[in-house]
């Protein structure tokens, strides 16, 4: 049980984030775009997390951010898993020149850090949240493809795969019926760990102002605008910073727990 405490706390935090994002319009203090009080009001009864430099309620913006950040990272992860997983599967099940080509491309792309790849993508496509999601999704794909290929490879060596091949099963049939179903749980824990990376990636890009719209109630962007007021209004950077750290920590430790449970 003690071993599970971090995982339990992580699950609780993620549950809170989920609930907050679902009930956002009910528990917030109006629109995240509208000024509601004096700019830079410290946390008080009316504005429990204070107001930002333009007089908007920080709590409201945090609550709406709970929808944007995890949602964006989830989409980015999905893109990574589909692209990376698919190319990893192809590489693992069809060895030979195709495997070598895919891995050659992957290795070449891995030479550039994923986040830099994502930034290049945004630079080419122009700023905006959809671009950020695509960028992080594509940026994570090479690393994911490599790891997925390793996972698939383990199963390719198993006896039942050899048996199926001996019985005349084709590569795609083997991939669909033996490799993919068996690799599922490992892929899931890989995807969970990757979600933490994607979360970090999207918030980093929005922190750098690549979301395009500066009024977007998004934690990374809020952290960035709070940076200018570290001395006179520390709560502006504190709350989004905390939310980002806690979420990444929670997802990481859940991912680790998931990986451990497979070993048990």
């Amino acid at each position, binding site marked *: 049980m003690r071993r599970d405490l971090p995982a339990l706390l992580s699950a609780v935090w993620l549950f809170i984030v989920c609930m907050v994002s679902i009930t956002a319009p009910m528990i917030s203090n109006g*629109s995240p*775009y509208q000024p509601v009080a004096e*700019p830079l009001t410290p946390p008080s009864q009316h504005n429990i997390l204070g107001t930002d*430099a*333009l007089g908007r309620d920080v709590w409201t913006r945090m609550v709406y951010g709970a929808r944007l950040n995890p949602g964006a990272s989830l989409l980015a992860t999905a893109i990574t898993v589909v692209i990376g997983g698919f190319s990893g599967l192809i590489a693992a099940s069809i060895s030979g020149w195709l495997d070598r080509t895919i891995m050659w491309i992957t290795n070449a792309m891995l030479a550039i850090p994923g986040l830099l790849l994502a930034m290049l993508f945004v630079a080419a496509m122009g700023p905006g949240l959809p671009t950020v999601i695509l960028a992080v999704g594509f940026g994570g794909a090479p690393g994911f493809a490599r790891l997925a290929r390793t996972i698939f490879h383990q199963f390719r060596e198993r006896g039942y795969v050899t048996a199926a091949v001996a019985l005349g099963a084709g590569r795609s049939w083997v991939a669909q019926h033996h490799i993919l179903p068996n690799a599922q749980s490992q892929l899931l824990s890989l995807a969970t760990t990757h979600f933490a990376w994607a979360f970090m990636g999207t918030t980093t890009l929005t922190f750098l102002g690549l979301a395009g719209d500066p*009024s977007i109630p998004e934690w990374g962007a809020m952290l960035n605008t709070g940076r200018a007021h570290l001395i006179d209004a520390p709560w502006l950077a504190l709350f989004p910073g905390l939310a980002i750290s806690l979420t990444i920590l929670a997802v990481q430790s859940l991912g680790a727990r998931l990986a451990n449970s497979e070993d048990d």
Partner: protein
Amino acid sequence: MKSRIQSLTLITLVFSFLFLSIAACSTGPEEPSTLIYGLTLAPTGIDPHLNASSELGIPLHSVYDTLVFLNPDTGKFVPGLADNWTISPDGLTYTFTLRRDVIFHDGTPFNAQAVLANLDRIRDPDNHSQKAVFMLGPLEEVEIIDDYTVAIHLSEPYAPLLDSLSDVYLGMASPTAFETWGPAEYQFHQVGTGPYRLVEYIPNDRLTLDRNPDYAWAPSIYLQPQADIENIIFRFYEDSSTRALALESGEIDIIGEVPPHDATRLSVDADFTLYPVSIPGQPMQFFFNTQLPPTDDAIVRRALIHAVDRSYAVNTVFGVYSVVAHSPFSASAFNLESQDLILDYDPTRAEALLEATGWTAEDGDGIRSKNNIPLELRIVSPPWGSNSEIAQLIRADWETIGARVILEVAPGFGPLKQAQTQGEYHAIGINFFGTDPDLLRSFFSSNGLYNWTGFADPEQDQLLLQAAQTSLDPEERLRLYQQFVSDVQEEALLLPIRFYVNLIVANKRVEGLHFSAQGWYPILIDLRITH
């Protein structure tokens, strides 16, 4: 034993006192005085004839002299390198009589030949001047009448000429220096006639000036005949959040463009003085696109202006240092802030105007629509200044009156221009600085380079052209611009926010800080350091 330690301590103390007093003496008036000035932008090029940055003038305004100077208080031109000048009755010829006692920092004498060489350098198409050549307008020929008399001939009257000649971009450089170094290298070896000499320029690191001991031709806008401070070193602080810290740590003595919240903090600090300086030119503003519905309708544009609480926005973003702007231009000699047609914050009126033009909110989603088209507005904001903060508040106000608003911040001038060319915007921000209202011609003429409103009216074109050509009667010229401003307000072509106020903070040991008419450039010759 104990007494030995005591006497040792005593001796040490005596010696340290001696050393300290010697050290204190050596920082007396004998030591050459040095001032560190923080710049806020590292320009890509600092050759005033060729480059366009406003930042370059902060050091170089004191390296160069100009033919005339603009008095910031009266808005009148005063003699500089030219003793006096005459304008021909047709406004086509300006004849300048030059001072005879001026020499460049490298010993080259200043004369009519030098003026011709400077203007030729600026006009040389191979040099690709980004700003100075445009400031010369319809210049046709420069004629040397004698060694100290030069005539500038224009192909058509051009009232802004004296204003251009008073700016650092048309500062007089030593022909010996720019012919020796060529257009690419000259920026590192600039030679003028001003009260300071350029010693060294290392891009992104430092720019050093030292005092010109031979300076004896100070214009009347300078209070001292010679500079006081020996050396002035300029350093770069591009990140606005580091500027106040650099002042407080004593790294620099003066810096501009301090963020309002830092400026407020430092203004009550006994060690610092805040100098808010108004910069003439256009206000921060958002142009309405008159080519794209619904902002093609002047009534909708008026409604959108009424909807924005500009006092709140200006107060929130710029603190107490700025007031709301109502006109498209301001400078000391051209007060165009008309009171007749101010569109104040009045959301009720805004909603009534929208109702009257058929934009109603009947389907209950809170978004107004007309003929089933929702009231959707797209704002494109530049990334610099505080444009994006203001744009966020405009967005909030427009949403309040029932519009759906998309806000996009273009990450630089290139993307901003690209968004403008694509035309998919209802409001777009851009503003330039300058002391002459002819600046407005490129923004409001039908074929102007910056006609981002898309508004085209032959009468307005004619009015702006006529104002540009009224060289001899400043009062008539002012009247024409006042007429123009009320036309623009009638058409509600733009949402002006505030005129730029540069928040400069200096530590208390700096005295005598004042600025040229262009607002950006400090008059370095008058600076003093108190001990």
